[in-house]
């Protein structure tokens, strides 16, 4: 089961990533990126980390990419990339995915290069929300808070850069 | 354009806290619509909707329906082709071709008498104008339907046949 999820997730990530870089319309690229995120969520699920898997979907696919899509659609408008022609990226992408799967699947029999082992016996509660919360708000509290400060600084910076003098909220 | 006497700026009534909190007002609104719902559920028969093909609304005796042409005692049309109705018709939907009547006391009779029911506005001026009460709109027929435009141009024979329903 984990192996199946691994190959599925890996294929989705590869296909999504390659197609995202290769696609010409920004909206298509965003959709491929979402597929890639879903693949990584599947990988997290295979690694016994359901919390991270759900957060991956919730935060990246569900919130950030929707925001991106909103902005892209607003800037591009409802104009179709008819001039972009037929997509050509799917040939390399389609070739790459089975190649990668075969590579990973056969790597098992190459001496010295096995699959990264799937976790067998995990400590109880591994990957569950409680454990993640204990790590974030206990062991790594300082780093966690520092990152949130960085984010706040970034937001204020974006506000300051993005708006002119008159529209700043503190003016 | 300015409206004298009206204030230039409409002052909005300040909403109270509970009004701007929406939830209470929404509940009040739900109560109003719910009252209608329950009343209609309990008294289904009292709804104003008329179940049309089975039941019909009663119209007054002066309701102007589709036209008909009156007959004399001998069955000939009472119309004398005086052209009053086609002249007064605001929609110009009545076409009469007059012919000489064999009876010298009558003078004229309509050879053809057609009404374009698609043009008719059912104003009733034709029956008001008619000097010999030959055209009437008292049939009460209001369902006039056909699948082609030609059928709506009805002729003398059709209008004289007074036992018809709405079918053209």
């Amino acid at each position, binding site marked *: 089961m984990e192996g199946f999820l691994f190959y599925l997730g890996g294929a989705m990530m590869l296909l999504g990533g390659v197609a995202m870089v290769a696609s010409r*319309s920004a*909206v*298509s690229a965003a*959709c491929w990126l*979402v597929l890639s995120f879903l693949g990584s969520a599947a990988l997290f699920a295979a690694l016994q980390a*359901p*919390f991270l898997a*759900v*957060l991956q*979907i*919730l935060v990246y*696919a*569900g*919130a950030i990419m*929707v*925001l991106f*899509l*909103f902005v892209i*659609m*607003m800037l591009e*408008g*409802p*104009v*179709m990339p*008819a001039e972009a022609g037929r997509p050509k990226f799917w040939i390399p992408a389609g070739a790459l995915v089975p190649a990668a799967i075969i590579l990973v699947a056969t790597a098992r029999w190459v001496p010295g290069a096995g699959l990264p082992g799937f976790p067998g016996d995990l400590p109880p509660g591994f990957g*569950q*929300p409680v454990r993640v919360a204990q790590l974030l708000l206990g062991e790594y509290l300082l780093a966690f808070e520092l990152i949130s400060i960085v984010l706040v600084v970034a937001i204020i910076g974006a506000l300051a850069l993005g708006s002119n003098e008159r529209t700043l909220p503190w003016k | 354009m300015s409206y004298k006497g009206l204030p230039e700026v409409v002052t909005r009534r300040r909403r109270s806290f509970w009004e701007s909190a929406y*939830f209470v007002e*929404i509940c009040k*609104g*739900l109560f*109003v*619509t*719910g009252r*209608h*719902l329950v009343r*209609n*559920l309990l008294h*289904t028969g009292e*709804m*104003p*909707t008329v*179940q049309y093909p*089975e*039941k019909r609304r009663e119209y007054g005796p002066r309701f102007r329906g589709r036209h008909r042409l009156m007959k004399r005692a001998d069955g000939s049309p009472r119309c004398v082709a005086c052209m009053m109705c086609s002249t007064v018709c605001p929609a110009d939907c009545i076409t009469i071709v007059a012919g000489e009547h064999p009876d010298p006391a009558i003078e004229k009779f309509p050879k053809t008498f057609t009404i374009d029911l698609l043009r008719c506005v059912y104003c009733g001026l034709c029956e008001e104008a008619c000097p010999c009460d030959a055209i009437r709109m008292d049939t009460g027929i209001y369902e006039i339907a056909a699948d082609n435009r030609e059928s709506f141009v009805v002729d003398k024979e059709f209008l004289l046949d007074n036992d018809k329903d709405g079918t053209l």
Partner: protein
Amino acid sequence: MVPVVFEALAKIVFMFLVIMSFVPLLIWAERKGSAFIQDRTGPNRAAILGLRLAGLVHPIADVLKLVFKEDVVPAQRHRVLYAFAPWLVMTVAMSTYAVIPFGDHLRLGGREYQLVVADLEVGLLYVLAVSSLATYGVALGGWASNSKYTFLGALRSAASMISYEITMGLALMGLFLVFGTFRLTELVHQQGDLIWGWLPRWGIVVQPVGFLLFIAAVYAETNRTPFDMTERDSEIVAGYHTEYSSLKFALFFMAEYAHMVIGAALIAALYFGGYQIPWLRRELIEDQAGLLLTGLLAAGALLHGWLASLYFRRARREKGWYRDAREREPGVLGAVALVIGLALLGSLLLRPWSLGAAGASVLATLLQTGFFIAKIACFAWLFIWVRWTVPSFRYDQVMRLGWQILLPVGLVNLVVTALWLAAAHRP
């Protein structure tokens, strides 16, 4: 392994059937309910052999019409995304149900069955994650149609989704703080408790503000009035599905109602005790199963007898109204009600008061699942009722409500809940 697969399949099929039978019923309730609210009679013409069932035949006619209609598509559409969007919406609508428990443990033949498709540790977050994906179908469908109206609908849907997702998350976090688990089965199970011995420990009791926030967010996410910006008829025709027709439109339409059922199921499961019957714990039902079943059967027989008498009276009253097959309808319905009533009465002869342990467990499960479905129906009706009562908000009002009112209220609610819990659990 095989029984596990069968068990999972059975549960999936059950949930699927419940939702898919809710959808036409809700469409019927929407049309008939709106009609009665506005003093109209609503649809009552479509009939099979004269049986009209108060307009219930109309959804069948609608489906037939939509299936056989020509699929008109815009020429300049994005082919893949245009075809993909309705399926995406429907898939997302269907997958939320996986984590919603529809009954307590069912003990049968020494085995215990958990009546939920997937009992995820992160169930609550799964709900949020999947519902956040719902916007893709709408946004991409609107964009891929290559029309101004659908595009505006898509933009609005993305905007409202981003805004109200946060409120929804904050409301759910308050619930999470109180019950201390993301697991929906556990969450619903805890709501069976009583506070001070008489007040059910439902989500709405412990999180009243959170409930108001959640219900507003759910209405916004399902795009129902008063938050129906994405398909506001007077402004953008039909919003994101303006350019869709035939079966693709049917999918969007069904997905909208499926989303309503999810919303109602979530409200019922999170804030109204899910399958829990207040003051009637499962142990009590199982103890008194025989007595309860007898009472239920007798009540059912009485109810059907009463219904039959109503129908027969109507049959006499409506004699000569239609002069065709429709005139038989009340009589036929009355006969059916009478037969069911007699069958229920006859089943009393099978001595239902001496019910076994397995039967008691099944009865308790049936009762609880039935109660849950009744709760879902109530909240689904609330969606319809609100739609035909409240005028919709303007776009800027929706944004202001989401960001400037609901979000701060949600934050305050979260902090207050945390402080209250910290004070209550101080060692």
